[in-house]
Structures are given as C-alpha cells and as structure tokens.
C-alpha cells in the first residue's frame, strides 16, 4: 500500500515475436485443415474444428461473463485487470462467426450432427426411421437449431461488445453513468446467459450423440468454459506482467485468480462426477452407453482428463503461497487449459466416431496427430492474434473505473 505511481495509460504494443508466432500458429492451423481434407479425413477435421471453435467461443463468452460477474458483485479487486477479459469479449464476434461457420458447414456436408440431422431418420416406415430422433425432431431440426445458435451467440456478442464499449467511453468521459449502465445490463446478461448456456451446450456438443441425454451436461460445460476462461485470463495477465506491462498487478490479484481457478476446477469435478455417479449407479443401458464408449475406446484419456482438470489444480493450487506465485499459477493454468481440451475431446470424438479410433469399412476414426495439434495451434494463434490486437487498442487500465484505486491497493 501507499503511494505507487503506475503509468495507467500505458498501452500494449502488439509487435515482434508474439505477432509472428501467432501468425505462424494460424498458418499451421490452415495447413492442418488443408492436410485433413486432402488426406480424406473430413470427419476428423470437422470434429477438431468444432472442438477448437467451441473452445474459442466459450473462452471469449466467459470473458464477457467474467465482466458481468464483476459488475453485479460490484467487485473492486478486479478493476485494474478488466481490460484483459474485455479484449476477450471484443473477440467474441469473430469466434461466433467461426463457430457458426463450422456448425453450418458441418451440417451441410453431413460431417457433424449426423445422428439427427438426416431427414430420412424421420420418415415413418422408412429404412432409416428412428423413433427416438423423430420424437425429438420438434427441438432438433436444422432451422430451429441454427436459429437458436444465432440468437444465443448473437445475444452474448451484443452484450460482450457493449461491456467493452462502455468501459472505453468511461475512460473518455468519466463519471458513474457507464458503470451503472454496465451494472444494469450485466444483470440482464447474466439471466440470459445462465438460462441459455446449458441449451447452447446441449445443441452444440450433446446433440452429437442425439440418442443420449443428460441434464447435467449444460452445467458441466458451463463449468468447463468458465474455468478455462479464468485460466486464460490468468495466463494473459501473467505473461503481460512478465513482459513488463501491468506492473500494478500484485500477488493478491493472482491469489484471487488462483482461488477462482481452484474453486471452479473443483466445481467442474463436482458436476462431472455428479453426471458420472448417477449413470454409474443406476446402470441403465440407454444411459451407460455414453461412458461405455469412453471407457472402451478412450480409457487413458478418461483418466488423463481427471488428472489434468482435478488433481493438478487441487494439489498445486491448494496452498496459499502457490496461488500467489506467478510461475506456479501460470503452469497450473496452462495444464488446466490443456485439460479442458482433453475434456472437450472426450465430449466430441466418441460422439462423432461411433467406433472411436478404429478404422471401420475404410473410414478412419478419431486420433491424435497432426490434425489435432495443428488445428489447436491454429486456434491458439488466432486467439492470441485477435485478443492481443483488441488489447492493444486501449490503455491497459480503465482509468476512470470507480473501483480502480481499490484494485490498485488490493491486498489480501
């Protein structure tokens, strides 16, 4: 505490090695997509595109969720780091366009959602008639499905952009008006977000296996997207700090982020386990099919998922000093981010590939190789490029935020 003099109007300069590396990442991603289509692994490429596009959109929309939570809680500690989630929120429209393109093309080329998106499944008496899918067709039909995606993602993008805009205008004009406006809209956004993210997760991921359903699935995905977004925020802030920016971020801010990552990793495990336990205990074949596929074809992935997303944050972030340490928090955040890639992989691949990694009738199954790594790197590059460009447009501290002083003097 006391008199610190920070340059609050400092701006991030997006140049040099980071820029080149992010562009290289994007090029590797484009290469991996091209390789995927040339080597005739259309389904596998589409599944990976869906995975990363979903991941990208979820991290960005949870950035907007972070902003809304800070408004509604009238949180003071976070005021000086808000530019990072704001940059993520500003990137959301790009992520949304990519996700909608992947979903749309996946539907159009029958590479994704073929469990329900085939009109022949609904023809009564037809060879492919599926009674279960026909029963669900009022909800799972292409126009309504795409409509929901566009409305939900559009609403999230609208609020995300508005939160970032109001903060920018607050810098110029000051006063409490923009904060009040943000608060009011954050309340509206949270209600919309809370009710629609489960449906968004049901649509985008769960409908890949349209015969199976779980009411926990929405919250399971919400926990995953929220914790991965928190880890991303931590990674960006720590790397900015290491590069000499945002020197006002002290280890109490890191402590808070660490608590968030720790707490929501446990929450993720709680929801994941709640879904698992009920299915395991009841042992009904129409439900256990979900875990049957994952145990049979992806057994090691199943345990790696728990080690990365539960045990690592549990054991490494439990201690107070570890939450306050830059390097440990950075390491755990990166592990958690990798862990949620594995988690999404677990959700998507067994749904798209009926027989997992096995080659059936000459059709290749899922796998882990250049397509997976390349597309992941491509999206990491794209994320870095878009978020850091958005971040470089404004000062790194919202200088007229009403709680800025509290945040600068934050001490736990």
């Amino acid at each position, binding site marked *: *505490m006391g008199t610190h003099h920070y340059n609050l109007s400092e701006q991030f300069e997006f140049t040099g090695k980071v820029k080149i590396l992010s562009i290289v990442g994007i090029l590797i991603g484009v290469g991996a997509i091209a390789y995927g289509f040339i080597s005739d692994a259309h389904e596998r490429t589409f599944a990976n595109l869906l995975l990363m596009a979903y991941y990208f959109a979820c991290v960005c929309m949870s950035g907007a969720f972070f902003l809304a939570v800070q408004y509604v809680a009238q949180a003071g500690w976070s005021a000086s780091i808000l530019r990072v989630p704001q940059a993520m929120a500003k990137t959301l429209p790009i992520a949304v366009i990519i996700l909608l393109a992947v979903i749309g093309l996946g539907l159009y080329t029958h590479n994704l959602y073929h469990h329900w998106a085939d009109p022949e499944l609904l023809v009564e008496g037809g060879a492919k008639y599926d009674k279960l899918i026909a029963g669900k067709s009022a909800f799972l039909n292409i126009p309504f499905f795409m409509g929901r995606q566009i409305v939900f993602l559009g609403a999230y993008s609208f609020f995300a952009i508005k939160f970032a805009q109001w903060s920018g205008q607050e810098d110029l004009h000051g006063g409490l008006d923009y904060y009040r406006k943000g608060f009011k809209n954050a309340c509206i956004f949270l209600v919309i977000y809370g009710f629609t993210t489960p449906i968004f997760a049901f649509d985008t991921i769960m409908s890949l296996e349209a015969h199976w359903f779980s009411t926990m699935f929405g919250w399971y995905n919400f926990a995953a997207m929220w914790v991965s977004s928190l880890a991303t925020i931590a990674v960006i802030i720590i790397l900015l700090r290491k590069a000499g920016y945002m020197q006002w971020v002290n280890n109490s801010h890191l402590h808070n982020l660490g608590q968030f990552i720790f707490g929501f990793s446990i929450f993720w495990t709680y929801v994941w*386990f709640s879904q*698992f*336990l009920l299915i*395991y*205990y009841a*042992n009904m074949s129409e439900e256990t099919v979900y875990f049957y596929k994952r145990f049979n074809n992806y057994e090691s992935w199943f345990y790696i998922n728990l080690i990365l997303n539960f045990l690592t944050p549990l054991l490494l972030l*439990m201690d*107070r000093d570890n939450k306050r340490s830059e390097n440990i928090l950075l390491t755990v955040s990166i592990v958690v981010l990798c862990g949620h890639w594995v988690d999404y992989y677990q959700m998507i691949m067994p749904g798209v590939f009926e027989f997992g990694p096995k080659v059936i009738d000459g059709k290749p199954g899922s796998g882990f190789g250049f397509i997976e790594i390349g597309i992941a790197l491509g999206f990491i590059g794209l994320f870095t490029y878009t978020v850091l460009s958005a971040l470089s447009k404004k000062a790194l501290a919202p200088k007229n935020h009403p709680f800025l002083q509290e945040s600068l003097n934050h*001490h736990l």
Partner: protein
Amino acid sequence: MSNIKYILGSFGDPDEMMHGIEKLQENNIKIHDVYTPMPIHGIEAKLGIKRSRLDIAAFFFGITGTITMLTGVYLATVVDWPINIGGKTHFALPDFIPITFELTILFCAFGLVGSYYASTHLFPGRAPRVMDLRASNDRFIIAVDAKENTDHTKIDELLKGAGALEVKHNERKYISYE
C-alpha cells in the same frame, strides 16, 4: 522494582494506533500484542506475526476424515458384510465418494473449531480473559510487556505522543469478564 506487568496504550483511532506501533518499533520497544475491535489491514505484517498454520491443520483434519470414511466403508462392505449391489464390486468407490467428501468436511470443520478453542483458550463455560475490556468495543489497545521494557516513562510518552487517549499500568496480565 515495580509490580507493573503490562503497559496498555488505549487508542480511539486505528491510524493513531498504527502510528503508535511505528513509534514503539522505532525505539526498539518490543510489543507484546495488539487488540482491536475490528480487523486492521496490514497489521500482521507490521507486527511481524507469523502466518497462521490453521490451513495445515485443516488439511490434516480433512485427510483424517477421508481415511476414516474409506476405512469404515471398506470394513463394512468388504470385510464384515459383503453384499452384491447391482453387480458392482464390493468396494465400489464412486458410490462412496459423496459420503467420503461429507466426512472430510465434517472432520475438517470440527477439527478447526477445536483448534480455535484450544489456541484462544476459549471453551464453552469458561469466562474469557482479556487485557482490556474496551478492546472489543471502541478502543485499540497496544500492550507492552513492562518487565522486559523497563523505561516506563519513555513508553508512556511515546504512546501519549502517538495519540493514546489513556495509558494503563496493569499489575495483572488479564482482567476477566467474570
């Protein structure tokens, strides 16, 4: 030799009290303890108080609960009375995760309440012993050990100079609520 055991500086304002702590520390006078009616930010660092080990205690209480429950479940479902439930193995771990979790929390909570009572000498039915009654009301108290620091007039001056409303020379360490 006087019988005075403790000198208490009683402040009406936390900032003045913090100032008093600084003054005493500048003059190398060891502070026994500080009592305040509300938490004061940064006071632990200023007084050089070691970090609480409550978190370590919490971990071990918790792990005791985990082990107790898992042992109990194992003894009941495998050793003593194995029953086939839904064709699962006798020691079907996922079934018992919720109850293990509950017992971890329970042991942790009870253990911490016990630790708190033990470390503060507060037990149900026992009258708490305090150095100054108003420390839980409206006064901020700095206590200095009068046996260790013999220059009492200087301590008085320093405390008064920092803004102490009252300086007490106590012959007993504690007064009690009795």
